[in-house]
């Protein structure tokens, strides 16, 4: 990567005897949307806090925009916007007043403040409730107000911690669109989440955290290749006459590496190439009625589940608590 705006090398955080983040390495390039994935307690938030200089680094180092957040936190925090996990505001004052307070803390000149606040609120479609008290806001509106704060700051990096958790589908959709809007303005976005489908939708690259380590890192298709092996998944629903073992026949299709059957009709093929036409031909010639044929893209969900299954299998299922 030519121009990493965030670079972590052996980043480690220990609390007394427990290691929360354990020697994490990653780079985030300018203008990228980078996803931090993993179960709760895997060390995502702690990693984020270290990047902002809000918690001390036990070992290793992290550079944000070329700065060390431990030594120059103000410089880093001036250029990086942070939306914490379930963000809060001062309920008794209005949305615009909340932003006015942080605008002053950011050191935005008095003359510019009002116009920048209104512009930020407009971007997140909250301009109509600018003078309403935040106490009346829904969760989705609060998250958007948090995003407005990042826009107000004109941050070069936006760090969003679980931005869509607890939002309804419509609000989630809108929020993800806004995140993509940030990317168009070449803002680097670091997104932590356990909502895999959403992450897959917007992220260029992802890092999968487990037990304080990054266990997988890369683009989603690359990870699919790595974890799922084949990379192609084909689902087909076939109603077969009794006595026909379609599963065995499908296995003979060249390129198919595995066949699994779900319920009565559904077969899932893992393959090293696109086997849709061949599989359909086999199903039809076996006398089955083909009702559904779909090419499933490798989903992050599948990667995630498969990865942890493999892990469990490799360690004899004893690491389920990890």
């Amino acid at each position, binding site marked *: 990567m030519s121009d990493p705006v965030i670079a972590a090398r052996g980043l480690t955080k220990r609390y007394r005897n427990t290691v929360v983040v354990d020697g994490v390495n990653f780079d985030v390039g300018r203008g990228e949307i980078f996803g931090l994935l993993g179960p709760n307690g895997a060390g995502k938030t702690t990693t984020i*806090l270290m990047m902002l200089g809000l918690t001390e680094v036990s070992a290793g180092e992290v550079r944000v925009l070329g700065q060390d957040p431990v030594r120059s936190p103000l410089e880093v*925090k001036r250029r990086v916007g942070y939306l*914490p996990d379930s963000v*809060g505001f*001062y309920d008794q004052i209005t949305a615009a007043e909340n932003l006015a307070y*942080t605008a*002053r803390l950011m050191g935005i000149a008095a003359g510019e403040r009002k116009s920048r606040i209104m512009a930020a609120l407009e971007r997140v479609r909250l301009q109509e409730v600018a003078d309403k008290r935040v106490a009346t806001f829904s969760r989705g509106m609060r998250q958007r107000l948090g995003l407005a704060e990042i826009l107000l700051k004109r941050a070069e990096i936006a760090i969003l911690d679980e931005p869509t958790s607890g939002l309804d589908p419509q609000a989630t959709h809108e929020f993800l669109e806004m995140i993509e809007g940030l990317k168009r303005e070449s803002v680097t976005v670091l997104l932590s989440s356990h909502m895999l489908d959403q992450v897959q939708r917007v992220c260029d690259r992802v890092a999968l955290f487990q037990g304080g380590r990054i266990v997988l890192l890369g683009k989603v298709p690359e990870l699919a290749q790595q974890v799922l092996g084949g990379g192609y998944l084909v689902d087909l629903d076939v109603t077969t006459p009794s006595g026909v073992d379609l599963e065995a026949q499908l296995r003979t299709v060249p390129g198919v590496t595995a066949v699994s059957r779900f319920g009565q009709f559904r077969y899932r093929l893992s393959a090293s190439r696109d086997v849709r036409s061949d599989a359909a031909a086999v199903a039809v010639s076996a006398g089955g009625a083909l009702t559904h044929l779909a090419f499933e893209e490798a989903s992050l969900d599948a990667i995630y589940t498969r990865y942890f299954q493999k892990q469990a299998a490799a360690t004899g299922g004893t690491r389920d608590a990890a």
Partner: protein
Amino acid sequence: MRREGSAFQGLGTVVLKELSDHLTSMRIIVIELLIVLVAFASLYGATERLRDTTQEDPFLLLKLFTVDRAPLPSFIGILGFLIPIVAIGLGFDAINSEYNRRTMSRILAQPIYRDALLLGKFLAGLATLGVMLLCLWLIVIGYGLFALGVPPGTEEILRSLIFLGIALAYCGVWLALAIFLSIVFRSAATAALVALGVWLFFTLIWPMLAQFLAQLIAPPDLAYLLRGLPSPDTVEWQQILARFSPNQLFGECVLALLSPTTRSLGPIYVEQLQGAVMGAGLPLGQSLLIAWPQMVGLVAGSIVMFVASYIVFQRQEVRA
């Protein structure tokens, strides 16, 4: 390792925000109304008594602060009692409310240090209390002019202004304690209860305990006991112990400053009174000298409490 930038960046912003929160919060308005009401009542009582005793007094105005008429306590009695309550009311949720509202990490992600947030909250609380005290002071002086018709002298004004400063230092001790507890306890209710517990301890229990402990440390001398007098050692110990309480320090300061005839804050021997003109007031400088250690004690107490909060807060994890 040196940090980049000033620790005070954003301090002014935090102070103004907190100040506006305090001045508009229902909680503070109610407490202040209460204080003004009680203050008026005690002032009324004081003027009634001052009208009865028409003997010549060069410090008539100061008497408004100190004279009480049963069942109402004197004005300073009320202040000594209520200042801690107001200060605790301002400080008990200073830090933990930021965590509970989940605003802490968002605010600290702005380009400021934690120092500015903590100091800003302390200064804003102190400013609120300062405004309140100044108003009360003006009420007393104005009421004195109105009800007694005696113009205040320079020395009276000076003494009462210094008293204002001392009251502010006393506020500082309790405010810093309340903020400290708001950092230590995540629940605002716990912090408030513990703060009130400390206050109760120092107002009610500690004076008794000091007496008891003093008798343990220095048992009363039989020679004095037979004459029905307290033993000097016991009295001295009792005073030393009692002075650990900020209430005691405040009371002694106020006594020395607002009652100019006070010659000593400790036990005094008859020999020491030789040549003294009884009933004559001390000059301001001498009164200050008497109360100086107590004043320093109050200021030092608030600084120590603030430093303790600072240390705990700096080490605290941001995530709730």
